């Protein structure tokens, strides 16, 4: 399966291709919900690969049309744009392990955060952790949640997606998101890797306000992270 006639073919057409991959910290559903600026059901309308000026890698700008807003400042029918690592620009491919891939026509349940940079778009929270594909169970109309089904699929055909016998239905997650959001639920405080300082401060304050008994060792961790790293001049 890993034999290389295919690789030879790839080599011939994918020279100078960067590839990227990651190590992740696992996020719970409650953490995804709390940390997300936007939790929505949506349909992927467009996926446009782009290469930034001077960059060798490719990212994909994904246009989502929102069909249901579970959390955040948006309404049904709005369109939001995500920028994700990886993409295919005229056969020049950047492949990124753990980056969420989107396909036109795909329906998704996504947890989104804003990029922390000027002119930033949205991005999927926790990379693949914040994205579920919705596939309708033909006999009942219920949506089943699936992971990692749209990688390398240029046009998504929902009816062609095989469903497992044991199914996780979307309503279980959606109901949890709605309940947690409506109740202002704050998950147990922890310093989540990659969370900006200002957002961590809000999380910490909210956890205190919610009456959480926060492990005092988090204070030491927060203190270490609040100090600028030494060196770098």
């Amino acid at each position, binding site marked *: 399966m890993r034999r290389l006639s295919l690789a030879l073919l790839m080599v011939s057409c994918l020279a100078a291709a960067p590839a990227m991959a990651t190590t*992740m910290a*696992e*996020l719970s559903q409650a953490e995804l919900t709390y940390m997300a600026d936007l939790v929505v059901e949506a349909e992927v309308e467009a996926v446009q690969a782009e290469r930034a000026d001077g960059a060798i890698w490719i990212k994909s700008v994904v246009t989502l049309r929102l069909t249901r807003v579970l959390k955040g400042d948006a309404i049904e029918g709005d369109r939001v744009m995500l920028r994700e690592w990886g993409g295919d620009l005229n056969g020049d491919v950047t492949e990124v392990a*753990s980056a969420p891939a989107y396909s036109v026509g795909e329906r998704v349940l996504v947890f989104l955060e804003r990029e922390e940079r000027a002119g930033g778009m949205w991005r999927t929270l*926790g990379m693949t952790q914040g994205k579920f594909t919705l596939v309708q169970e033909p006999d009942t109309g219920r949506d089943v949640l699936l992971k990692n089904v749209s990688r390398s699929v240029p046009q998504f055909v929902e009816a062609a997606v095989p469903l497992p*016998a*044991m199914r996780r239905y979307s309503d279980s997650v959606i109901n949890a998101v709605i309940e947690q959001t409506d109740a202002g639920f704050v998950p147990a405080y922890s310093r989540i*890797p990659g969370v900006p300082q200002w957002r961590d401060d809000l999380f910490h304050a909210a956890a205190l306000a919610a009456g959480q008994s926060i492990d005092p060792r988090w204070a*030491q961790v927060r203190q270490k992270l609040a100090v600028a790293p030494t060196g770098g001049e």
Partner: protein
Amino acid sequence: MNRAARIATLPILILLVPVLGGWKFITPARAWDITDSSRWPIEYHTGNVVPRGFDSAEVKWDMTQRSYDAWGTYVPCSPIEAVRGDDITNATQGFGSAGRSTLTFNDPLNDLGTGTLAAAVSYTGNGVVTNNGYTFLAITESHIVFNDGVVWGTPDDISDPNCFAVHDYLSTTTHEIGHTLGLGHSCEDGEACSDPLLRGANMYWSGGSCSDAKRTPNGDDAAGINAAYGVSVDFNIEPVDGESLVGAAPLTASVEVPSEFQNNVLSYEWNFGDGTEHVITATPEEVEHTWEEEGEYTVTLTIVGEAADCGGEFDAQERKVGAVLVCDEPRPAFEFSNAGDFTVEVVNTSDLGAFGCITDFVWILDGDEDGGLRTYQPTYAFDGKSSHEVTLRASGPGGETEITQTIEATKQSAGGCSASLAGQSHSGLLALVLMLGGLLGVRRRR
């Protein structure tokens, strides 16, 4: 429409080909050209800051070198080498091409998001490299970026009983270096990943704090790195008297080693994953094996060989994770309870086992085959007080089995019942059957 015809028109719901797990190359496949003295050994440059949690730049340099060395030290016959160059300006590096390989700390250009510990990117030129029959794009430089908001620790920090929220620098850096050497993840988020060797691989997709469990490359990591750089082995596995490696017990398959992997081999040892005695041969003859019991089996070939490049005798291993799936007949079971208002909630209590041996459920009400529902567990709503026969049919590689029991729809809620024995379905009333659950979810604008 008869049942056979109906099934033929349904979308394919069953995936009968097992997905072989195990180490993966990042795509497109890429590796360093270890014969290119201008790029090998890898010269890497760290950002000129001290990562949070470390006392000094010396600790950073030492830990980084140990991470590179892990791919040479713990992988038999691996040629991986790396040397440290001068530090680079941390604040401006990131993933951009620099003409050299770098490690940047605290994500200065905000390329990473929430939940990411670190990421790596590798660049390739137009050259290609071949090894063990694989062809790779030749890597020219690689970049690792560590996220902000992470406290890093040394092995002493991690093994300290008071360790709290500290991430093992060696584990994460070794993992990212694995990516820069060409390896992908052993499993991705959302994959079942039932094999313990894949879950314990350094190249597993995630890592927790205060843990060194995945610090050292394991057998799966080693097989991947050796496929790209060292001495590797592979084998073919084919079903005997059947069309698939997925089926009912007993199932027989044959294994054989392609000629290109027979050079310099002194012995072949086969482990079929079912606890039976390993088969050891001095020659690469085809071997047949029969699996008698339900299970998902990993087949492992370990060779002992001799090669001057490896300094003499060496061993190499290839595992085909979950290559064979043997299933007993499905054992469907369900319980139900009357929820009132003539609604009956059904709970699927079938023994799903650990191997995915049930691939399809169909619920048949009052013998109406054409109206059968492919779902995990339905809720039935009726017009009025009534009694109905419900059949649950489960199917998979081991065959097809069904059970039937009678449910009562009443105005008031009541206790339930369960069934777990095979039975017969009966034709009966055509009731108004509605699927609830998702259909009843109120669409609301928030």
